């Protein structure tokens, strides 16, 4: 690899890379995100490599192993450029066919195309798929274009251009001004204005300043930070270097949980490559500015996503938060001014520097600018990572991008912001998604988890799940979070077992408010959100559990009963065979019945019954 010593050198290198790329014919990109890995994309990629090698025509076919493309549900995903063909659910056995038919003859393989769920028509190119159509993939876009482990790919698409611009054409104050006027807010959840944080950190007295990238993503069902760091580690790095230059930082850390091995690996590789290319280390691009980055691996504690706990963890102490009256920008890592931003925030920085703040602030709402990546999961047809402009309505995300209900039951709520977020009922789906409007309805942006729930989801059960999650993840330092969440979990357990009494709900509310008021860190302060918001919008469900001892969604097993409709039962005996507790009686061709005492309420009978005769109440 060549060492870049100036901005001109960088441009020359880019031209070299681009001129080489022009000669190429077909580019086959296999998605190499963690989601696709689970589907076996490594095998598909190896098969491609093997087959291409056999044919000995590598001159015209180029294979890329890219980062996550977001549509993880349909993995492994393969795209073929320049035609822009999008193949989904590609298996090893499809590889020779793709090479012989699509690549050589230009024929499109119908069985690998995405089928539009509404029109039942096959869609050839990525941009026509409804899941991608409504998205605005500014940050995630790079993922599909480049191979994360090759710095040349990133340079080829204009990478490190923003860094050169920041180093040679801008002063640190100008950069901060640019970020401030862009209106970029922290993507980690709280939405603190990034420019203001940088400014405070720059002004904080101190020779040594630290820059940290927070990739300790722990929300159940959220994985946008991982995908970004895996798929485009150089954009994160570039953002960090620009930030360090603006703030005056000399050393940086990328804090990644060790459960993200690919993200760790790719980030480490990117750091080594950037160092070798002269984009990191001493005298970056000959500008005289020096900055180092290293990867700090976390043990995977949810609380370590909290800034003070994260810093404690890097320092080698227990990952526990401390009182935050003195901000991180004044006293952070090892008592030095520290600027911590989320992966997504850092990835936005090169974009803003490249395209300017007016462009960036033209996207989004008045107080929330730019785009946000959400991980859309739950009871919708299309799940995966979606990047949308701020201000888009929940309806658009859930119905246009997500494709609406999956199991035939109407959607009733969406839970945003991970375990610390709240549940938003379907009646509020016209709500524009931005930091302030989500907070107003009792939820939050959080890191961007979005779990869609339909009528088959019990809100008490959801609240219970999140409280138990946080109770396990609480560090235990402060009393309200440790004891309060435990007690909230106990109360919810009792309610779902049908043992709730008249005082349960008010006690739950009172406890929730006190925990939110008095907890030490963000984890505890937001922990009661799922419970409080569920109580606010779905109180009738809680009341049904407490007073009628019924679970309207038929989820809480102690409160439901299985029975077989005499009129519908055909007496086929399928349920009798699968029942693990022999609780079903009845002769062949005769109506069957369930013995309540023996029934373990597993639901197997309902699953196998073809006549829909098994009823749940």
């Amino acid at each position, binding site marked *: 690899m060549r060492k870049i010593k100036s901005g001109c050198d960088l441009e020359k290198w880019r031209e070299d890379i681009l001129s080489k790329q022009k000669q190429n014919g077909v580019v086959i990109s296999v998605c190499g995100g963690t989601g696709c890995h689970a589907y076996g994309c490594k095998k598909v990629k190896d098969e491609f490599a093997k087959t291409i090698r056999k044919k000995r025509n590598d001159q015209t076919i180029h294979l890329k192993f890219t980062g996550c493309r977001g549509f993880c549900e349909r993995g492994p995903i393969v795209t073929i450029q320049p035609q822009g063909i999008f193949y989904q659910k590609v298996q090893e056995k499809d590889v020779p066919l793709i090479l012989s038919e699509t690549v050589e003859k230009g024929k499109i393989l119908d069985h690998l195309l995405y089928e539009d769920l509404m029109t039942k028509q096959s869609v050839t190119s990525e941009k026509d798929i409804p899941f991608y159509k409504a998205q605005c993939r500014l940050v995630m876009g790079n993922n599909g274009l480049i191979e994360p482990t090759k710095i040349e790919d990133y340079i080829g698409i204009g990478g490190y251009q923003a860094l050169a611009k920041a180093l040679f054409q801008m002063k640190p104050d100008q950069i901060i001004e640019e970020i401030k006027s862009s209106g970029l807010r922290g993507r980690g959840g709280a939405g603190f204005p990034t420019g203001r944080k940088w400014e405070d950190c720059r002004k904080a007295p101190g020779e040594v300043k630290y820059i940290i990238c927070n990739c300790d993503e722990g929300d159940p069902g959220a994985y946008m930070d991982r995908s970004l760091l895996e798929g485009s580690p150089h954009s994160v790095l570039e953002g960090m270097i620009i930030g360090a230059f603006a703030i005056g930082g000399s050393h940086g850390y990328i804090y990644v949980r060790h459960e993200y091995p690919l993200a760790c690996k790719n980030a480490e590789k990117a750091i080594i490559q950037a160092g070798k290319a002269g984009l990191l280390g001493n005298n970056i691009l000959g500008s005289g500015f020096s900055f180092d980055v290293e990867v700090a691996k976390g043990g995977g504690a949810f609380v370590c996503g909290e800034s003070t706990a994260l810093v404690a963890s890097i320092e080698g102490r227990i990952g526990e938060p401390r009182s935050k*009256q003195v901000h991180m920008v004044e006293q952070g890592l090892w008592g030095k001014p520290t600027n911590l931003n989320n992966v997504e925030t850092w990835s936005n920085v090169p974009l803003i520097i490249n395209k300017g703040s007016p462009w960036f602030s033209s996207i989004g709402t008045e107080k929330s600018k730019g785009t946000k990546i959400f991980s859309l999961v739950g009871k919708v047809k299309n799940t995966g990572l979606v990047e949308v402009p701020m201000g888009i309505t929940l309806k658009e995300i859930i119905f246009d991008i997500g494709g609406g209900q999956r199991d035939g039951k109407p959607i009733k709520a969406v839970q945003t912001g991970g375990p610390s977020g709240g549940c938003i009922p379907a009646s509020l789906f016209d709500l524009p998604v931005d930091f302030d409007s989500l907070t107003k309805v009792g939820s939050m942006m959080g890191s961007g988890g979005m779990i869609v729930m339909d009528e088959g989801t019990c809100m008490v059960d959801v609240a219970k799940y999140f409280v138990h999650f946080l109770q396990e993840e609480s560090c235990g330092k402060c009393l309200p979070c440790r004891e309060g969440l*435990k007690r909230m979990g106990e109360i919810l357990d009792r309610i779902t077992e049908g043992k709730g009494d008249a005082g349960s709900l008010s006690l739950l509310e009172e406890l929730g408010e006190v925990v939110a008021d008095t907890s030490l860190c963000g984890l505890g302060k937001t922990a009661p959100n799922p419970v409080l918001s569920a109580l606010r919008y779905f109180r009738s469900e809680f009341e049904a559990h407490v007073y009628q001892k019924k679970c309207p969604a038929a989820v809480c097993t102690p409160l439901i009963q299985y029975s077989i409709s005499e009129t519908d039962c055909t007496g086929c005996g399928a349920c009798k065979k699968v029942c693990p507790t022999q609780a079903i009686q009845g002769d062949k061709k005769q109506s069957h019945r369930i013995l309540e005492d023996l029934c373990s309420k597993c639901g197997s009978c309902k699953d196998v019954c073809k006549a829909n005769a098994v009823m749940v109440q």
Partner: protein
Amino acid sequence: MERKTVNVTIDGRSLDVEEGSTILLAAREFGIHIPTLCYLEHLSPYGGCRICVVEISNNGGGRTYIDTSCTHEVREGMVIQTGSPRIIRARKMLAELLVASAPNVKVAQDIAARMGLVKVRFPFEDNRCILCGLCIRMCYEQMDGKALGFVGRGMGRKVSMPFEVRPDTCRLCRGCDYVCPGVIVPCQGIKDPGELCGRCVRIEDMPTCCPMGTFGCFCEKNPL
């Protein structure tokens, strides 16, 4: 030497307090009582029990927030309320949580009584350790022992020695014992689970429960 002071308002009283002091110290200096549990003079503030929470407004108007007075430093113009309804409610709930988890720890009983609790709505447990961390800070900061620390997370959190073996740095000074609120003879007053005796605030019953003003006791001689 001249002391630099800042002006703050605590419970409606305008006070000049030493710069850099915490709200708790400032309040105590002027005789305003804020209950504490995990705080002990000469040990670093920990902010774990949250009993000493106060309602703070940075400039007197607008948004107020709650933070622990033991960790929060005074700033010019701060307006602090130590006994607003929001605070009283929070402290009561905290005391209830505390006493439910450790009903036989005297300090927990004292604080519960002090908050006027008569009934606990949570099932009782019998923890002897309230995880206040006093022993750890005593060992680390005063005795230079570094023999104790927290292990585990959340409900599995406990005080322990490295790998549960007494290290050489422990000189058996018993400093940890000395500060531990859990080793004080527990209240003898409770009879039925779920009930609190509240004798510490009834002077005639005092001797059986509270041998006069020991650490953390809030009897009528030292009212809120």
